[in-house]
């Protein structure tokens, strides 16, 4: 997934962001939906907002589109303060979660709807609509009404309609929520393709972490009206800044204890009475004290005999085995009662599987595989 020239405008201090949230707060009555929030999104980014239900993702989008005004702070798009500018005067289009296709208009007229509001000639509109139909592979359905096409096709119409006006910024609120897994994956790649072709800035809302990881250039993880971490998908996955993010993105093992920073820069965590402290990379701002050790299951090696070359070794008993086809996840119970997961690729035949229930096994990992995060 590495491009020839890496796309990372957020690392370039001379780059000005397309969207800037500055100390934005949103309150509904006495309920604060968005806590003071700063965020910059750059041109041509595919930016994902990820978070549990009710954390304020839609609210953030609606403020960008202009349907809600921030209670405090400023939002600028392309350097222009958006306060008081109604949705129809913004170069922003939104693809609604429910698609919001006009049921009385054909697919063609739905896509042309926004174009007709501008000062384009009839011929220009027709050409643009046909372009959009081709882009979203809807040519054959142009004359149908929304109730005569499938869910996936509706979703593409909604996308085509929002893209037709060539907005600076396209907002997608859970665009793939209604699709089944297969169609969802296909559409994700289609979306990325379209985003690349049109060079539009996309902001997508999702609560599916896999989706965010697949499509986005950067991901913002939200919790209760706050942004907890903004980073590229690999960084979010490899170096989460908190146990919340680690737990939210992907599968993770957690061990709690007291941390110490070692002379070699690593951190060690005393996690159980009498056990050798485990070592891991020190997380951002770790001072020592109460901390958690986080490690992804696929970084934990499971063996029948004690490995000699590793310092992080724990012994346990297999509690459960989850067979996922290409992968197997072993749930291993440690003497102290904690359960760790270890994942291995199934490149052998099932019948020759090494381990079974109740087996005594050793779990081990390298010194830099896990992270020690302050709590």
């Amino acid at each position, binding site marked *: 997934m590495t491009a020839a020239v890496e796309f990372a405008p957020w690392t370039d201090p001379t780059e000005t962001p397309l969207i800037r949230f500055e100390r934005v707060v949103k309150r509904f009555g006495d309920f604060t939906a968005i806590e003071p929030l700063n965020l910059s999104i750059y041109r041509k980014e595919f930016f994902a907002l990820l978070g549990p239900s009710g954390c304020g993702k839609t609210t953030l989008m609606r403020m960008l589109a202009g349907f809600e005004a921030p209670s405090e702070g400023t939002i600028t798009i392309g350097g222009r303060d958006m306060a008081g500018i109604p949705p*129809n005067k913004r170069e922003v289009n939104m693809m609604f979660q429910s698609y919001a296709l006009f049921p*009385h208009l054909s697919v063609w007229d739905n896509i042309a*709807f*926004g174009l007709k*509001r501008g000062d384009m000639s009839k011929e220009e509109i027709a050409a643009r609509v046909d372009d959009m139909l081709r882009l979203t592979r809807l040519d054959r359905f142009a004359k149908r009404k929304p109730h005569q096409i499938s869910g996936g096709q509706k979703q593409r119409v909604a996308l085509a309609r929002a893209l037709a*006006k060539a907005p600076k910024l396209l907002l997608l609120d859970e665009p793939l929520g209604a699709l089944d897994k297969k169609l969802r994956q296909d559409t994700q790649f289609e979306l990325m393709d379209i985003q690349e072709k049109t060079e539009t800035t996309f902001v997508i809302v999702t609560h599916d972490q896999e989706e965010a990881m697949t499509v986005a250039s950067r991901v913002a993880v939200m919790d209760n009206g706050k942004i907890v971490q903004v980073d590229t998908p690999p960084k979010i996955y490899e170096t989460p800044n908190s146990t919340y993010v680690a737990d939210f993105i992907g599968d993770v093992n957690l061990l709690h204890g007291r941390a110490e920073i070692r002379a070699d820069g690593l951190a060690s965590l005393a996690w159980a009475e009498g056990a050798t402290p485990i070592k891991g990379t020190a997380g951002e701002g770790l001072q020592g004290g109460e901390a958690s050790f986080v490690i992804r299951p696929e970084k934990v090696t499971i063996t029948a005999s004690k490995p000699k070359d590793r310092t992080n070794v724990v012994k346990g008993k297999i509690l459960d085995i989850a067979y996922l086809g290409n992968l197997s996840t072993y749930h291993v119970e440690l003497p102290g009662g904690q359960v760790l997961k270890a994942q291995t690729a199934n490149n052998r035949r099932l019948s020759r599987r090494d381990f079974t229930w109740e087996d005594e096994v050793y779990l081990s990992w390298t010194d830099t595989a896990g992270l020690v995060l302050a709590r």
Partner: protein
Amino acid sequence: MNFARRTLIGIPYIWLLLLFLVPFGIIFKISLSDYAVSIPPYTPTLDLAQGWAGLRDFLSQLDFENYIWLSEDDLYWKAYLSSVKIACISTLLTLLVGFPVAYGMAKSAPEWRPMLMMLIILPFWTSFLIRVYAWIGILSNEGFLNQFLLWTGVISDPLQIMNTSTAVYIGIVYTYLPFMILPIYATLERLDGSLLEAAIDLGCSRTKAFWLVTVPLSRAGVIAGCFLVFIPALGEIVIPSLLGGSGTLMIGKVLWEEFFSNRDWPVASAVAIILLLLLVVPIMLFQRNQEKAQEAEG
């Protein structure tokens, strides 16, 4: 199909047969008869005691004389035309009043809606006749309206509203307003708010979004409401008789007079049959509209 299902499906047909087709047949038969000073006031009557000969005799006396009479006397077709005109105009007026009311109801806070709905239906709790009489009290030369206007000094002589077509329009709009409001309200209430947001997002002003989204999407309700007002208004009789005076010509009134004043049952029946045929067209259009609306939803 088992017996229980057949019976279940059969019930509405039996209903239609008993309450619509049989009375229609009787009226149609009377419309083909002749006026007579007797009880009932027409000939021939079927004498079943004479068997087949009686039936043949009976059928031979039926003719379309009354219909020819209707087409020759211009009173009737003028009454039909004037009824259609009054029904059309009052339907339009009801729509103009009803749409904003329905729109306001649909836009109001959800907790208010049941209350507003009650207020719309409330008038039905008093008798229709009493409500029409109440309008006489309001509209007559010594009525509340004129007294109020005289008192405020807007006019110096009482306005003549009673016994004009204005009074008929007021009466019809007032009476049938709920039939207009309710179907429109039903479509507006179901309207997905995100459609309006989408329209605005795509560059519409609020007014433009109203015309391009709200209006077309409430079409089914508007059409349903218009038919629900037009159809009964066309045959309306109480309102023109009580409020319209002798000046307003409506077919319902003509029918009433033929039947009760002239006791000419055959002609009255012929008038009723023509009125029914006039109504079949809008009723069928109405049916088509409902079907289409259902299709679009499905």
